[in-house]
Every structure is written in C-alpha cells, then in structure tokens.
C-alpha cells in the first residue's frame, strides 16, 4: 500500500474499484455495440431519409427528407393496416402468454411422475418456433392437407369451446372477458408454441429460489397458494419483466410487418422506404415497451 502511495497511485475506494471493474466487464459488449450496432444503426437512419440507387460503382445516396416516411404512411397500401393489426395482436397475446407460462412453469416445477419427460415436451416449441423451422413449417403441404381433413372432426372442438362460453355467460361473467378467454382456448396451439422460451425462463427463475424459504413458510403453516403469492411470485417478478419484454419483441419479430419490410428492401430493392418502415415500426415498439416496463418495474422486487 505504501509503495502505491510513493508511486503516486491513488488508493481507490471500494466504490471506485467496483466502478472500474464494472466498466471492464461491460467493455467487450460496448465495443460490439459501437461497431456492430451503433454505426450500422445510424447509417440505416441516414438511408431512411434518402433515395438509394445501386449501380456498378456502388451506392448513390441522395437526401430526400421525409419523403420515405410520407410514402410509407400515406401512399403504401398495406403498411398502416399491417402495423395496427400487429399491435392489436400483441396487446391481446402478451398478457395471456405471460400468465400461461408462469402457471406452466410452476406446474412443471412440482414433483410428479414423468416430470422430466413433460419438461422435454414443453421445450419443443423453443425449437419448433424459431428460425428456418418456423418458416418451413408454415409452408408444409402435408400439414395443410391433414389439417383440412381434420376439419371435419373439428366440429367437436368448436362445440366444446361454445359450451364453455355459454356456461360462463350464464354464470354472469362479463362478455368481453368470456370472449377473450374462449378465444385463447381456440388459439391454444399458437399460445403454447409462443410461450416455450418464457416457460424456460420462469422455470430457471423458480429453481434459484432457495428451498429454505419454502421450508420456513411451511413450518409457519402457509398453504401452497400462499407460498406462491408470497414467495414464488415476488421472487420471479424480475423475470416477469424479462418475459413481458421478450414476448412483446418476439410478437413483433415474426409478423406480417417484418415480412413487408424485408420484401420492400430485398425484393423491390427500395432500401430507403424499407428503412423508413423499419424506423416507424421500431418507434412503435419502443413506445409500447417504455409504457409497459415503467408500469411493471414499479412492482418488481429486487434484492437491493
């Protein structure tokens, strides 16, 4: 310590040391952020304000102001409709998916016969609903034909959900809630296949809760229901935030709008318009995310 003082190196305080290490830990990410994100991001912003023509010499970028944005919002026939549709879809799906996946994660964390098999099955959507598999799945001819054949027996399916609806309406539940829930039952495959990642994140979160908490609460006489609301729920609440954010982004990353953006950019080679669309779309997601995270993060519990 004395040699340090002699050499003129200041003894750092605990917080300063921590701050320095923090910066070192974040540094690799920061480099990647600047080179592989920020620079391309800014050039895409520049593209969105320009008309781009590619020729043998390279790209010619010409400043045209807000013309691309005006074209996307007023001239392009499908952009507005696709945008509102995907936002409505998201608002409907996100709460359902998050609640459903938390419920399933709690269920899969309990001890029962065949648990590891069940977990393996619920992991499958993570594989099936990603990347190339998803896009191939939607074009599978055999699947389509089989679904058509199954349509005749599908009458029974529709009937059961119809019965449920009638039952709940007669019990005096509000009509919007009933329609929302029965709609969810009818779209169960969509919901399940979209919630694979969320189930795993919640499951991992539940695993890190120390068993002593549950033991103590059991000795104090808490029921399983109380243990869920007083222990599990607050302890996984940081991950509820993760999952809401992930679900919102995920629901945006695979909809008709991204297809439209990609098609405009790479099939019609209108990079400027495509960048402008991507920017409008990005701003919409940003607004939705800021609203929802600010609501949720007030309720989140951290060990700090």
């Amino acid at each position: 310590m004395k040699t340090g003082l002699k050499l003129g190196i200041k003894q750092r305080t605990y917080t300063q040391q921590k701050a320095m290490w923090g910066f070192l830990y974040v540094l690799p990410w920061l480099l990647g952020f600047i080179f592989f994100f920020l620079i391309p991001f800014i050039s895409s912003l520049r593209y969105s304000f320009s008309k781009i023509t590619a020729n043998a010499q390279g790209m010619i970028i010409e400043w045209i102001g807000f013309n691309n944005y005006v074209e996307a919002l007023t001239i392009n026939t499908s952009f507005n409709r696709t945008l509102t549709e995907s936002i409505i879809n998201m608002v409907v799906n996100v709460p359902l998916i998050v609640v459903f996946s938390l419920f399933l994660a709690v269920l899969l964390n309990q001890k029962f016969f065949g648990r590891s098999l069940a977990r393996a099955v619920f992991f499958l959507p993570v594989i099936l609903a990603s990347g190339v598999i998803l896009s191939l799945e939607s074009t599978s001819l055999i699947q389509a034909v089989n679904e058509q054949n199954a349509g005749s027996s599908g009458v029974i399916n529709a009937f059961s959900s119809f019965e449920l609806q009638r039952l709940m309406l007669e019990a005096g539940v509000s009509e919007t809630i009933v329609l929302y829930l029965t709609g969810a039952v009818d779209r169960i495959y969509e919901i399940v296949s979209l919630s694979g990642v969320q189930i795993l994140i919640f499951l991992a979160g539940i695993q890190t809760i120390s068993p002593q908490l549950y033991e103590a609460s059991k000795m104090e006489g808490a029921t399983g229901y109380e243990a869920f609301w007083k222990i599990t729920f607050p302890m996984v609440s940081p991950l509820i935030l993760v999952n809401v954010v992930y679900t919102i982004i995920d629901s945006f990353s695979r909809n008709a709008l991204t297809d439209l953006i990609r098609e405009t950019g790479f099939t019609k080679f209108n990079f400027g318009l495509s960048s402008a669309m991507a920017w409008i779309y990005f701003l919409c997601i940003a607004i939705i995310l800021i609203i929802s995270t600010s609501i949720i993060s007030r309720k989140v519990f951290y060990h700090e």
Partner: protein
Amino acid sequence: MIRSKWLSFENWKKWLWSFVRYILILGLAFVILYPILQKISTAIKDKSDLYSPIVVWIPQNYSLNNFLQVINIMDYWETLLNTFSLSAMTTILTAISCALAGYGFARLKFRGSNLLFAGVMLTILVPPTTILIPMYMNLKDFTLLGLIPLITGKPVNLLNSYWPFILTSLTASSLKAGLYIFIFRQFFRGVPKEVEEAAYIDGAGIGKTFMGIMLPNAIPAIITVTLFSFVWQWNDSFYTTTYLTSSKVMSTQLSSLPYNLAVQLDGGDASQADPFYLSMVQDTGILMAILPLIIIYLFVQRYFVESIERTGIVG
C-alpha cells in the same frame, strides 16, 4: 378420529390436484406433439402410401427411404459437424461475454452504466432487418477503425468465414445477445446482496467473487442462455445466409432441400416434381435437423431439474 378425517380430506385434495395436473399436462403435451407425431408418421411412410386413402397415421409400407434421401442430399454428417461447431463456438463465446456484461450492469454500477443499459435495450428492440445492409457493407470491407489497412494495406473481407460469428459473439452482439445480457442481469440482481458482501469481507476480489460466488448461483441462467443461444444459432437462417454463402450448415441446407431433391429426381426441372413427395422429404429433413437438439436437451435438462444446492445461504 377427527384428525384422520381431516387427513383424508387433505389426501383427497392432493389426489384431485394431481389428477387435474395430469389432464392439463397431457392435453397440452398432445397439442405440442401433434405436428411432430404427424412428421414421424410421414417420414416412415413409403411414397406409395401418400395417396392411399386408408393410410392416416400408421403406414401400410414402412420405409427408411426418406431418411436415406435426406442424408444423401443434405450431406447430413458434414452439415451436422459444421453446424455443431459453429453453434458451440458462438454459444460459448456469447455466454461468457454476456455473463460479464450482465454482472457489470447488475451489480458493478459506474457513471453512465444506466445509459449504457438503455443501449442494451435498444439492441433488443431494433429488428435485425434494420441494420442488415450497413452491417453487410461493414463486414465486406472490414477495417477495424482503419487499423487493418495500416498493417496489410487493404481492408479484409470477412464474409464467407466464421469471423463475423466469432467477432459478434465475442463482443456480445450476436443473435439476440441483448436478451441474454438482460436475462443475466435480472438473475444476478435476484441473488441476495449479503452473499456478495460476505465474500468481499472475507477478502475476495471482484473477479473472484464473480467466478466463485455469483456464477455458481446463476447456473440455471447460464444453462438457459446457452441452450437458447445454441438452438437459435442452429436454426438461424437470417445471419447464416448473409454471412456464410457457401458453407454447409443445417438451416441453409434444410431450406434448399426440396429444390435439391427435385433437381436430383428430374434432372433439373423443379416444376415437374411431385410437390407432395417433396413436402414429405422436407418433413423428414426437419425431423433430422431437430433431432440433435432434442438429444442435447435431454442431457442438459437434468441441470434444470436438480434443484440447485444453495446450502450456507440464508435466503
């Protein structure tokens, strides 16, 4: 007497709950498995069974012909090796860099760290299509702030090599890396602060605390992240088609499978081939592409199942 009655009521409740649980899990598992079962039944069918009206699930003539076709056309073993090495490499590098960044953001606060974390959120938010074209240009003439031309005289072309994947995953900016940083951060924030402070008081430095105390506590997070990263890299066709144009990896081979098959069957005329048969081989290809992932998951998932020993930590 009263006590035993009460016990039996509890018992009833338990039985009822496990019954309901089984119904729920079986029903949902069926919903998930249905398309897979359909693929398996299609894959083991013979071509002649495709149009047979009596065959729905169980084929009349079993055949492994589809699998042989897929192995042959996709160059399966070589593709498997390529994809595996690519995914494993990016996964390990991504997990390391994201864990570091996540811990830095969660516990080692410095001036401006919140602002930088907003940057992480930005990377999650921005759809990859937005930055694809500038990114492509950047990698085609890679200069690293003008340093490489100083040494070799000209920028290097990183496309069609594994370098874009190595560089982006080393710097935590690969496919969905922002999400992994976010997951790690939330997990580290969930670890009680007392644990960390106890380690400091016992004389452990920041690096040692991270390696010895925080990482073992975050094993579920590490497994989650590696699993996602591996699976997504495996299935990714967005980056692989942009960066790797000629290397054989699973996703590109899979999407060009029907076309290649048609070429092989009819000598180049893709429009002549029977689309139903092509779809059948495609389904077999999907099965074979996801099979290694399922096998890996079965090995890894017991780390999820065994609850983490956290003895000595008062929660």
